């Protein structure tokens, strides 16, 4: 997993609420057995016509946002299915941070496993950043994970909360399976005890 420390980039505004994982990456792209190559299919049915042509007014097709690295999105971003193809597609497109008032639980966790930082901010902060994102490529935001801040193009700074363990993993690009396997002895002990107390499991 790539580390996430600081990021300065273009933010694309997606004010629609309840953007679901079926919108982020429609089902026909879930048939892959790889994690890569999904960027071209990100938001496919919003971004492309059925015959594959670009829909000009979709935000990521607009010249200013084709190289966006940040999304500023409406409430409850990533609701729906558990498909990790959603963060894979975002990452493959080049998105490394998503800002919203709330995220669906599984999507939120999946982002951290892939070097994407989902940032929860209050409505007024998201509103400000949404307006900032609407300014296009001249408005670059900076996300600083160590300092836990988002800085808008006008210099306004918005602090955010992040789980300390998830922050540690993201800052260092850590594989959490490796971390858990360091606790193998504790898992062994738990299994031995559970075999006594709940032998039917």
């Amino acid at each position: 997993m790539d580390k996430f420390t600081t990021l300065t980039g273009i933010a694309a505004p997606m004010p629609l609420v309840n953007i679901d994982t079926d919108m982020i990456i429609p089902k026909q792209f879930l048939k892959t057995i790889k994690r890569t190559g999904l960027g071209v299919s990100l938001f496919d049915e919003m971004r492309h016509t059925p015959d594959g042509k670009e829909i000009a007014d979709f935000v990521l097709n607009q010249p200013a946002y084709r190289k966006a690295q940040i999304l500023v999105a409406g409430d409850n971003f990533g609701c729906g299915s558990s498909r990790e193809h959603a963060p894979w597609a975002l990452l493959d497109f080049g998105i490394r941070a998503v800002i919203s008032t709330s995220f669906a639980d599984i999507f939120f966790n999946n982002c951290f496993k892939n070097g994407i930082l989902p940032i929860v901010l209050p409505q007024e902060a998201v509103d400000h950043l949404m307006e900032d994102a609407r300014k296009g490529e001249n408005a670059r935001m900076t996300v600083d994970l160590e300092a836990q801040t988002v800085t808008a193009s006008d210099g306004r700074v918005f602090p955010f909360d992040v789980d300390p363990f998830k922050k540690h993993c993201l800052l260092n690009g850590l594989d959490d399976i490796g971390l858990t396997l360091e606790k193998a002895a504790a898992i062994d002990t738990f299994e031995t005890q559970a075999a006594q107390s709940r032998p039917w499991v």
Partner: protein
Amino acid sequence: MTAPKTLYDKIWDAHVVDTSDDGTCLLYIDRHLVHEVTSPQAFEGLRLAGRKVRAPEKTIAVPDHNVPTTWDREKGIDNEESRIQVDALDRNARDFGINYYPVSDIRQGIVHIVGPEQGWTLPGMTVVCGDSHTATHGAFGALAHGIGTSEVEHVLATQTLIQKKSKNMKVEITGHLRPGVTAKDITLSIIGETGTAGGTGYVIEYCGQAIRDLSMEGRMTVCNMAIEGGARAGIIAPDEKTFDYCMGRPHAPKGAAWEAAVAWWKTLYTDEGAHFDKVITIRGEDIAPVVTWGTSPEDVLPITATVPAPEDFTGGKVEAARRSLDYMGLTPGQKLTDIKIDAVFIGSCTNGRIEDLRAAAEILKGKHLAPGVRGMVVPGSGLVRLQAEEEGLADIFKQAGFEWRLAGCSMCLGMNPDQLAPGERCAATSNRNFEGRMGRGGRTHLMSPVMAAAAGIAGHLVDVRTILAETV
């Protein structure tokens, strides 16, 4: 004396392997269900790292999303990518030695129907799967939720999950349901009330008389859609109905182990005075047969209502409603019962069990789909299909003009050829009405099996109570 605990607290506490200073826990996983869509990258990760599956005996795999539901499916899968994905699961199950129900096995079906059916899912367990509808298993008093593929790999390698505890939410449904009102109406009505983000950060315990009165299958329908309300999991305290359902299942304990298990399961309830961070109470008598009108599961209204206008909402929902109405081809003020349909889909992990098929067949007996309406029934498992055939339900569906199919996820998400055409409008017993979910441009109205069956006969959305009144 220990502080009173919720059911969720008790199951959580029984599975904590390790707690870090910041409260992050390592949680032991009792059952890991696996399907072909969200697992190939996880198994590949194991191979690349030279890791094994830690507990293959607790890992159960079944292909469901991509499998054809047509009767000629033994000839193989036409779509190359789908075939590769199912073949990959075949190979991974064999190479890693996990329990497996291949397409050719009569027990194959939707993973969330197979797990309970085979007795893999039991009270007090932690159950995960790379699938958001894992919430279904909460009906047994199990802590069950969906995970992403990276977490699938983590569970395969370590049989644990890194978790922070969620908050506790209680949803109480008091009293009794009125005729024509089902578990599906309960779960949709809750989402209509809380919104799709209302459960974010919570594990919901469903309780109250109307929940107690539900069969195990009805409880599975309720818990199945906890995720649509944003909750990590939904859970219902186990009781005699739960024990009766589990007893004798192939992987349920037997003899003395059964007795020991039941003794522990009987301690799995929320203690008097336990703290809930959020409480919602709905009167069972106030729940009507409902349908969705939009493209979010929170877009729920009683069938007697009219299509809302964007201006009826506030904030970001105004624009979302405008987009939904445009996608769904609906006009504000239009009566829901005036919405004509083109298709009926009965199936999915929400409503693909035998009781769902019985309920729909009861409505359809001696009737036929309206002209121009196509219907498809996809049983949730091979065993559900066999039982429905033995009970004569399949004949009722076929005589009513429905296609009778083999088990799988099918049209619920259209990863196989079972899809809606652009603009085609479907009365569906599934769980998501998202744009494009059942096929690009397809229009989905979520409802109960009896409401979907009734809509099929009428050719438009209809209040099932009017049909029930006719047959009395």
